[in-house]
């Protein structure tokens, strides 16, 4: 009986795995196909040659390098700032004692229920009012703090024994010094998770840039890709080449760091 259920488990996982993997496989292969191969019926599985001509054409038609740079700038700055603010907030909630601490934290957690889509309109108005529509600021500013990442880090900070804190205080350490010298180095696995998840989210962000960016100068990769797709609608092989450029960095990142992503989410999500 147990053996049979094992077989089914693996069968199920294999099938799901193939279903998940297939679109990426198809995208990657199509990126190298000729126009005729892509539209052939019945479909052609493998390209006749692995030439980079589709990539060349795509890069000629749209400023993908610009998009790529924008994506990097947005990702690095928002991840850096979010990480710092999350660390500070998590430390305050986990360690410092101030009136209303528990109430405030519960309030923040309940705000996690709000889907981002609901906030788009208010954030959009704010961006207009601040006069930063269609600028790098509009891409970064709304993503400089995160309740979810604060929550993950606080959960980790809560597991650090009190005695470490008091030991440091007795040894002359301030809260600030303790946070950066002891807490943060100890939280490295959780921090890695938070940074990776955040980087992934930032890189893939599509809807928000679409609302607040109108010109090529500040377009990020996913939004740029969308624009390109509309323009190059008749060349699916070039679309696939462009998509590959968008997705590949994150796939590589994920392969290297999946241990941290999975572990950290399980740790942060199950405790407390």
């Amino acid at each position, binding site marked *: 009986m147990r053996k049979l259920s094992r077989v089914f488990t693996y069968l199920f996982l294999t099938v799901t795995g193939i279903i998940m993997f297939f679109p990426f496989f198809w995208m990657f292969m199509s990126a190298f196909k000729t126009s005729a191969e892509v539209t052939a019926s019945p479909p052609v599985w493998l390209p006749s040659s692995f030439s980079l001509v589709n990539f060349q054409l795509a890069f000629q038609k749209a400023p993908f390098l610009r998009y790529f740079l924008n994506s990097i700038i947005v990702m690095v700055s928002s991840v850096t700032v979010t990480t710092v603010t999350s660390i500070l907030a998590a430390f305050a909630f986990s360690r410092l004692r101030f009136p209303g601490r528990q109430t405030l934290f519960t309030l923040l957690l309940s705000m996690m229920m709000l889907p981002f889509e609901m906030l788009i309109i208010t954030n959009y108005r704010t961006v207009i009012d601040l006069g930063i529509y269609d600028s790098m600021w509009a891409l970064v500013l709304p993503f400089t703090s995160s309740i979810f990442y604060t929550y993950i880090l606080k959960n980790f900070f809560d597991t650090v*024994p009190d005695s*470490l804190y008091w030991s440091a205080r007795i*040894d002359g350490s301030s809260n600030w010094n303790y946070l950066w010298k002891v807490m943060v180095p100890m939280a490295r696995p959780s921090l890695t998770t938070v940074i990776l998840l955040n980087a992934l989210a930032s890189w893939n962000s599509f809807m928000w840039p679409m609302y607040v960016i109108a010109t090529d100068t500040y377009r990020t990769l996913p939004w740029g890709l969308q624009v390109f797709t509309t323009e190059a609608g008749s060349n699916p092989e070039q679309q696939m080449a462009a998509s590959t450029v968008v997705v590949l960095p994150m796939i590589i990142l994920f392969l290297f760091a999946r241990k941290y992503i999975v572990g950290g989410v399980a740790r942060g999500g199950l405790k407390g």
Partner: protein
Amino acid sequence: MRVVLDHVTKKFDDFTAVSEFSATLEDGELVCLLGPSGCGKSTLLNMLSGILPPTGGQIFFDKDNVTNMPPEKRGVGLVFQNYALYPHMTVLDNICFPLETQHVPKPERIERANEIAKLVHVDTLMQRRPGELSGGQQQRVAIARALVKNPRLLLLDEPLSNLDARLRLEMREEIRRIQQRTKVTAVFVTHDQEEALAISDRVILMKAGVVQQNDLPQRLYDEPCNQFVANFLGNPPINNIPGTVHGHLFFADGTDEGISLPLFQNIADGKRVNLSIRAEAFIPEENGPIPAHVERVFTMGKEELAIMTLGDTEFRAYIDTEVGLVNGQNTRLNVRRRGVFVFDLESGAKLA
């Protein structure tokens, strides 16, 4: 440094963890705080280190009133029960940490860390992380970290409780050696009486947040000031024989033969008391005042441990093997001057 605690009290809401604690720790003394679990030992230590603010009373370090001084200003070293080493740092970095926060220049930091590491015998482990050390080694690193900044006061909260029996014995001698070498005033918390008596210059025995006796280790054993102290110290525990005093004679419960001992001279008629006798304080004597029935005898080398009864009460006595006690026999005993007390059965106060 001399430490004075003046009626120090700590209340958690309406629960009093430490009540009106007054004591003086002389410079260079090692004082043990002894008491059963939950009697407020850690709470008192935390008030000395500044982790917890007292709710009443005052604490002085020499002339300074430190009652409300934050921990980082007090210049104390604290060794936690779980050592609280920083797991991501090497032994060297752990020991250097207190110096780093004081902005001691790096070469001097390392020199002082190495010096203290030699004293506690961890100088060969400097590049390891705490996870790669045994319990005893971790403990010594924790002591080194507490000592490296030359604290005015060293506090140790049950530092040996995680170690196995042999290592405990070794480490307590080690701690004594280090303390005497550095001449630092030290407070050592434990609930192990043997540890307390072996290591300290003075023992403060607590119960439910209240000091019971503050004395030299030997006097605590020889002259307990109440029933609790007498019961707490000694292995096997002291024998308590309840009974009533009539006409300066002691009638153990379940007997009608009065026992005449000088101790009962000044005790009022009809008083309910405990006659408390340490197991080693009995002497077999043909016409001794105490009639006893021998239940069982266990030979333990040169002495025998005899389980005897007097009236309704069972007690233990160490008796010389030469006496040749036999199971089931009736015998008579006398007592030595040391190790015999009379306590009020209700209040536990010492009567004689």
